[in-house]
């Protein structure tokens, strides 16, 4: 089952690479995505106990992330044919193939129960996404790709070093020389502390770069700004969640070693810093997609902040990864539609989206309200859970900063979003040929419905899964 | 019932007489013999007999003003014990109703002035409502002081308080309050130094300019109402100012009437010896009244047991 989950998208990638027609090729995406989704569903339903010694397994944490990635990919894949039909000026062979390779790599990442294998998978996701960023093949996109690769590679190198440190820490501690998470957690008590801490720092920086925590986030605005909305959605929703998963796995080891408090301190600091940097850079942001990128930085900060607060904050952060992923997808896809209609993503040209594109504009606005934590949308539940965790653990200063930064972000983001959706569109925008249709708004609507659903009702299996994931990380069964 | 009848009789008959007394006092100061003491009655009768002229700009509001200018002071008078220890109507908090009845009349007289569309009457209305914003707190500070000393929240029992005792214990406060109230009385009744009904320069007037367009019965009601207002406010002032309680009801009524006469003469004297102050000084004078009675209250609060 695990292998099938990884191989199906890979095979589909090969198929997509072979299909000659730019028109027909995108149809491979939904087919592969839906089969992956079906396999994921089956895997989640039949999830067994974590077996020792197995390199690829689906545990609760992996289950949550796999479900998220699979759903997000399915949404993007449903959206892709409609979008690519608009972009027939560009060959989409590489795009389609790399999207599927990404899915495969992400699945590998989620399933891997081995520190080294996980690192390989993270590396693979980077390599698979670089060509996606370069889809537009212009000066700006090559610049974005260059920065993405440089910064991500440095991060990945640090993560490798961190993994090595962690390995050396285990080696010094004696015992079985294995990098399987289960073994690492079991033996963690005897690990060499300095190497463990240094390893965690390096892994935090490495995977934090991949997640986009400030000040390691610098590639994000460029990449999200220049990549197609579809790719932005996958990166902001899927890839970052995978990186978060990687970080969580490492955190699980460190916390099993009894260094949880140390790790949480770093996470809280980086989380708040990320929120602050994102908030500052979001103020008076005139580029819609860059604004979304900074919002992603902010929410990555919130995720690690939630982990750093600990307790119920951990479950809150895991839930927030789901909510953030879904909501970001709404925002990026809607922004993509707006970008197409206005042929610009700058506030200088984009205004009156509610008039020009009633549905996409409304979804963009709803996505904004959701991501900033307004009830009744999903992110409210998780953001509130993190706040509750902070307050009930007595960290009032953290709670106050958290709420204050959420307010600043709302101010910054709101000004831009309202400028986009309200007002009157320009003549040129009204005359552009793009029109909303069900293929381009249907997937977004569906996602928004999920975001709303998660705000009003969290299904029992999901709740159990999240509780299991959080419990597993804290050493509870 | 008898009490009510006597009360109404006094309120309806006595007030114009006060105006007569004021007029005579002023005439005496000017060295003239002046009009008869009953001249105000003659004026009213004449006005009620006249026809009237209405501007086509006006609406029903134009008539509602005079009606309430008459009804509200009359209703307010029911709450104030004149000579007798008890007013016909009395309940906890009736002092609020007392003040708000005058406000009601002010609302409609000012609206009636605006109804004519004349900028002069608008100007008068603006001054009237603006200046009473300052008079109102002064009145209330005084009422508070009186309520505090008497330990009661209805006008009847407040004013029936043995004030000779009150003057002994909190004389300083009462002096301040009475002074403040006297200023309010002059301002609310458009007397000199606030207003001068005898000049006919609209630009300088406050109350009087509001009623420029009213004539006949409407004007009669306004004049009648304002004399009742003078009487009622005067009664409030004098009941506190005169620390003479009398056990016999007839005697106390007599004392009361004497007090009112005294007040009228006092107003006449003030009108004779002072000139109208400049308009910009009016608020200052009213703020002074506020401060005086506020200070009275403060003194009392400071020396509270």
């Amino acid at each position, binding site marked *: 089952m695990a292998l099938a989950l990884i191989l199906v998208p890979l095979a589909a990638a090969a198929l997509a690479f072979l299909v000659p027609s730019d028109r027909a090729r995108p149809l491979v995406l939904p087919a592969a995505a839906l089969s992956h989704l079906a396999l994921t569903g089956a895997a989640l339903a039949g999830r067994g106990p974590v077996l020792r010694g197995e390199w690829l397994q689906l545990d609760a944490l992996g289950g949550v992330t796999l479900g998220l990635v699979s759903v997000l990919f399915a949404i993007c894949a449903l959206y892709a044919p409609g979008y690519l039909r608009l972009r027939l000026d560009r060959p989409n062979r590489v795009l389609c193939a790399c999207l599927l390779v990404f899915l495969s790599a992400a699945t590998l990442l989620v399933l891997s129960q081995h*520190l*080294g294998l996980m*690192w*390989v998978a993270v*590396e*693979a996701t*980077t*390599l698979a996404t*670089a060509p996606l960023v*370069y889809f537009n093949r*212009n*000066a*700006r996109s*090559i*610049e*974005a*790709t*260059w*920065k993405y*690769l*440089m910064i991500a*590679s*440095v991060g*990945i*190198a640090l993560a*490798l*070093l961190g*993994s*090595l*440190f962690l*390995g*050396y820490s285990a*080696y*010094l501690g004696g015992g079985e*020389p294995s*990098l399987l998470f289960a073994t690492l957690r079991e033996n963690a008590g005897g690990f*060499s502390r*300095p*190497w463990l801490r*240094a390893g965690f720092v390096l892994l935090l920086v490495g995977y934090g770069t991949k997640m986009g925590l400030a000040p390691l986030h610098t590639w994000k*605005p*460029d990449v999200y*700004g*220049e990549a197609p909305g579809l790719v932005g959605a996958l990166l902001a929703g899927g890839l970052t969640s995978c990186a978060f998963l990687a970080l969580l796995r490492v955190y699980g080891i460190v916390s099993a070693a009894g260094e949880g408090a140390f790790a949480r301190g770093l996470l809280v600091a980086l989380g708040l810093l990320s929120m602050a940097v994102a908030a500052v*850079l979001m103020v008076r942001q005139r580029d819609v997609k*860059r604004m979304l990128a900074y919002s992603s930085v902010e929410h990555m900060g919130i995720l690690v902040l939630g982990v750093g607060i600990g307790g119920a904050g951990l479950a809150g952060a895991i839930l927030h990864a789901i909510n953030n992923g879904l909501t970001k997808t709404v925002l990026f896809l809607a922004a993509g539609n707006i970008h197409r209609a206005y042929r610009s993503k700058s506030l200088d040209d984009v205004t009156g989206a509610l008039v020009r594109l009633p549905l996409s504009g409304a979804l963009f606005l709803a996505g904004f309200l959701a991501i900033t934590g307004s009830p009744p949308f999903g992110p409210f539940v998780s953001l509130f859970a993190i706040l509750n965790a902070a307050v009930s653990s007595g960290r009032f200063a953290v709670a106050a900063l958290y709420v204050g930064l959420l307010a600043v972000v709302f101010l910054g983001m709101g000004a831009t979003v309202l400028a986009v959706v309200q007002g009157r569109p320009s003549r040129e925008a009204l005359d552009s040929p793009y029109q909303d249709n069900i293929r381009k708004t249907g997937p977004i609507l569906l996602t928004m419905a999920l975001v709303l659903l998660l705000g009003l009702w969290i299904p029992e299996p999901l709740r159990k899964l999240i509780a299991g994931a959080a419990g597993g990380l804290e050493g509870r069964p | 019932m008898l009490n009510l009848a006597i009360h109404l009789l006094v309120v309806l008959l006595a007030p114009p007489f006060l105006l007569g007394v004021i007029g005579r006092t002023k005439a005496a100061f000017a060295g003239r013999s002046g009009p008869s003491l009953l001249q105000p009655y003659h004026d009213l009768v004449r006005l009620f007999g006249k026809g009237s002229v209405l501007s086509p700009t006006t609406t029903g509001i134009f008539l509602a003003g005079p009606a309430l200018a008459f009804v509200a002071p009359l209703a307010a008078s029911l709450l104030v014990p004149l000579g007798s220890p008890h007013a016909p109507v009395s309940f906890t908090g009736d002092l609020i109703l007392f003040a708000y009845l005058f406000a009601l009349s002010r609302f409609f007289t000012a609206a009636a002035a605006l109804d004519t569309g004349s900028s002069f009457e608008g100007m008068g209305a603006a001054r009237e409502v603006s200046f009473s914003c300052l008079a109102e707190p002064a009145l209330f500070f005084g009422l508070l002081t009186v309520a505090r000393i008497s330990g009661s929240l209805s006008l009847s029992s407040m004013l029936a308080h043995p004030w000779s005792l009150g003057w002994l214990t909190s004389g300083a406060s009462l002096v301040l309050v009475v002074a403040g109230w006297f200023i309010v009385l002059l301002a609310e009744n458009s007397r000199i130094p606030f207003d001068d009904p005898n000049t006919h320069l609209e630009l300088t007037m406050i109350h009087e300019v509001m009623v420029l367009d009213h004539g006949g019965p409407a004007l009669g009601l306004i004049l009648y109402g304002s004399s009742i207002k003078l009487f009622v406010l005067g009664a409030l002032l004098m009941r506190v100012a005169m620390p003479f309680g009398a056990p016999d009801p007839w005697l106390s009524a007599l004392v009361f009437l004497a007090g009112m006469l005294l007040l009228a003469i006092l107003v006449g004297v003030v009108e004779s010896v002072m000139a109208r102050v400049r308009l910009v000084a009016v608020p200052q004078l009213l703020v002074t009244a506020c401060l005086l009675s506020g200070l009275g209250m403060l003194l009392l609060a400071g020396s509270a047991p």
Partner: protein
Amino acid sequence: MHPADLLLVLVLLMNFLALGASGMRVCIRAAALQGAVLSVLPLLVHRDPGWNALAMAAGAAALKGVLIPGLLTKAMRDVHVAHEIEPYVGFVPSLFLGAFGTALALLFAGRLPLAPEHVGTLIVPASLATLFSGFLLLTTRRKAIVQVVGYLILENGVFVFGLVLIEAMPFLVEVGVLLDLLVAIFIMGIVLNHIRREFSSLDTERLADLKE
């Protein structure tokens, strides 16, 4: 003295060479030599080098010592630009910084607990110093090619550290090395090529349009 230490000193020298080189060609060659030297190291550290270790060493040497530097040199020639490096931070300050970093690495490594077989070797300090040199090149040099060189040196630093684990966890080290190389080739082979085509320059200042 561990036999590997001799080679590690060579690695450190290459760091300084790369930092002090004013021409790109020298810089690339320094990285190439460093890579080649490093590829041999596992054979020295390993107590019982097997066939796969041998194959790894050969492959790594070929890639790091020959293929990648060759590609870089070719890219450099294709652009027809001056071969001067034009750093943000001058060569002499770079060298001083490098020396400072190396000293710090020695100090820092001395305070870390080590397995008995690694005590006294240069592996950990050399690794940290190389990492630092890589970072220095990455942050202070203007030309994209030199940045790639910096990245290679950074990678070499990671690789050096891998030596301490080569017996306990060979998989991690081997896979890591291979994939990192893949990235390096990716960056150079494809992206550099595109950059050159788009900008007809490899100056990274041309690559700074996306900003706030």
